[in-house]
């Protein structure tokens, strides 16, 4: 079968990056990241069930700088996936497909994820944080 002069679908390498496309990939990436993050939640629950010593081990990880960086990343991934998930639910019922709307809700979702992450960490610090 010859398809010499048929138009080719754009190769990924030369495809112009778009905001909506990056956000779509981020949705999937944050979902995979959050799946890994459930390990911390399960460890926290098991630590709590295991007694004071095992709970302190989890708290020790979370208050270590490495644990804090992980937790910050997961906080953002959670809020991003949550906000963008609501955007997806809108599309599922047929709302917000217009190009301008999709771009604008994308900006809103991205900004909201950063604001909510900052807010959660500020409140967390004010409430005693992960000391």
């Amino acid at each position, binding site marked *: 079968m010859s398809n010499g002069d048929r138009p080719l679908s754009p190769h990924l390498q030369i495809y112009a990056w778009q905001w909506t496309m990056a956000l779509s990939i981020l949705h999937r990436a944050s979902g995979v990241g959050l799946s890994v993050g*459930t390990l911390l939640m399960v460890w926290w*629950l098991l630590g709590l069930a295991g007694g004071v010593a095992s709970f302190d081990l989890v708290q020790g990880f979370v208050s270590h700088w490495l644990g804090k960086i992980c937790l910050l990343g997961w906080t953002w991934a959670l809020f991003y996936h949550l906000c963008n998930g609501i955007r997806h639910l809108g599309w599922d019922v047929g709302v917000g497909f217009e190009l301008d709307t999709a771009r604008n809700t994308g900006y809103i979702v991205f900004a909201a994820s950063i604001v909510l992450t900052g807010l959660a960490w500020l409140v*967390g610090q004010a*409430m005693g944080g992960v000391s």
Partner: protein
Amino acid sequence: MSLRSPLGRVRGLGSAKSGTEHFWAQRVTAVALIPLTLWFVYSILALGSGDHAAASAWMRSPVNAVLLLLLVFATFHHMQLGLQVVIEDYIHAEGLKISSLVIVKGASLLLGVASVFAILKVSFGG
């Protein structure tokens, strides 16, 4: 004239026989996770630097325990549905695909059951 049988039309499953329930379960768990996640983040923040005693007391509250169980169920169900799609999209070698699916679904079940056990143990005061 449709060649589909009356029974086939009523079932409305099409030729693939399945698929819509995956989509539907993904959306229903997504909707459930909106309030549950916000509640969980709020609760974790409210616990603050909380020690073991404070966190245990929080989990012994029946309301918190039940909401936590719902959160765990919705999270791991949503997670394995989502990871399934990622695996099916990117892994095309049949053997690797099926083994990855089994591992991901098995791990989700393991993590979910371990969470439920931990929650019940704490809330029943074990």
